[in-house]
């Protein structure tokens, strides 16, 4: 069991006996409101999407499925193709990747984990930290060196954008936390 706060994209949760692959999680907390996690998921057996919300400390059954270490090979719309150590190819539907999709780029060498349910590759988890190159961001504003001021940046090889520290420049490599898709630091 995991708390809803601990669930991340790529996990498979069992809800009322149905396995759901988590595509996106959003944590919200303010004032006296209960801290909640909104989870966007897709039924592994039904293929239908759903949105649910949990208190962040609600316990969810996360299904432990067979996993294999793989590396990313190429994209064959709508499938992402991964390869294991024995050169077997595994196809994962783009939809199942959720937020992870934005961090998958050609040529990446990250060791990924492909998850299988009933023999079918259903999701992919990236390492906790990945390094990606910034393709475009606005120039740094003089004086903003505290690291607290953020600005948007687009990553090379993908449409993914995320807020980065003001001192980051085009061409910099940055570390990204894949649990939250947040900028960590300059690599």
């Amino acid at each position, binding site marked *: 069991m995991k708390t809803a706060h601990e669930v991340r994209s790529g996990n498979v949760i069992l809800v009322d006996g149905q396995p759901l692959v988590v595509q996106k999680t959003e944590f*919200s*907390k303010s004032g006296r409101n209960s801290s909640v996690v909104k989870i966007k998921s897709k039924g592994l057996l039904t293929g239908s999407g759903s949105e649910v919300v949990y208190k962040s400390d609600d316990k969810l059954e996360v299904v432990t499925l067979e996993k294999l270490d793989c590396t990313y090979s190429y994209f064959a719309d709508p499938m992402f193709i991964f390869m294991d150590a024995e050169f077997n190819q595994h196809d994962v539907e783009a939809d199942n990747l959720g937020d992870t999709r934005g961090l998958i780029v050609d040529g990446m060498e990250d060791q990924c984990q492909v998850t299988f349910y009933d023999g079918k590759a259903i999701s992919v988890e990236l390492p906790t930290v990945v390094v990606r190159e910034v393709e475009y961001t606005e120039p740094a504003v003089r004086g903003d060196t505290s690291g607290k001021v953020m600005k948007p940046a687009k990553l090379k090889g993908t449409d993914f954008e995320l807020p980065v520290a003001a001192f980051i420049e085009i061409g910099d490599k940055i570390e990204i936390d894949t649990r939250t898709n947040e900028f960590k630091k300059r690599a």
Partner: protein
Amino acid sequence: MQTWSIFCRVVDNFGDIGVCWRLARQLAHEHPLRITLWVDDLAIFAKIRAEINPNLAEQKLESVTIRHWSEQWSADIQANDVVIETFACDLPTAYIEQMRSSTTPPIWINLDYLSAEDWVSGCHGLPSPQQGLSKYFFFPGFNDKTGGLIGEQSMRQQRRAWQSADAKQLRQQLAPKRPAETADTQYISLFAYENSALNAWLHRLKDSPNPIHLFVPQGRVLPQITQLFMQAELHAGEVYQYGAVTISILPMLPQDQYDQLLWSCDLNFVRGEDSFVRAQWAGLPMVWQIYPQSEDTHLEKLVAFLQLYLADLPDELAQALRDFYYTWNQGGDIAQSWTILNTEREVLRQHAKNWALRLAAQGDLATNLVKFTQSKLK
């Protein structure tokens, strides 16, 4: 007749039970429903409704059955058609078992606190599958993607009918010892937590060219005013003079009378959630002191509310009101923003009136809850 249960755990102060009681009463009065309100702390409830006997396990008030939610929960208590846990309080395990074993599973709602933040619209009405049941998150809010605000039809009708003569009579009744009213007297209600901006603000009021009458319901701000007066104690029912300001200390008011006080003032300082909502329905200028939280998490809620509330005001006035709210909640220099607000009283008055009309157009929380549950029962 459909049966509903509302579960209320009193965390602190009167806001939790205040909201739950208003909701229970409105549902019982305005909809064909049989309402049971489970409350864990009846003594606190009795502070806002003197008719409540804290020692009774079950009693009835204004068509609502009120039951004490004790630690020893009987496994025999049957689940109702609709079950509302308020503010994420956890239901008794045995009651959830009863819900699961019902032939028709109840509609289970978690009614949360009010917030103007964007994420609320995205989570409002979503299911939360739990132990074979669907719980739904229901958020009060300020737009039509949320549940709206608690506001009884009866209250809104009474508010519309409220006249300046009624206001005068109420002020007389609440503060019989106060000086005679003059045409330019400004009336302000002050319900607040301890507040580092208060003394500077009162100091400004002291030198006001027109008389000001301040109604202060007993509460956490009173020791601070007592200290300002350098007195041992201020007493409810008494009137104190501070330059141009007459201060009337009021006893704890019943909810309905507090509403009337809000309708009878030119400006209302409110705190928490319940009085904050009532001040908005009053359609009069207000200043909100949000319930303070560790790590200042409450300030995000304040910012989100002001973004909505100030959207239609002229820039300079919006900035002055924003500054005043921030100062009132965090301390700082209050003088400049107060001067602007005080000279634009009529614009603020019209703005507050428009805001209340806009809220009313979105429907009230109780009615929206009924509509939501009916749609899930189909």
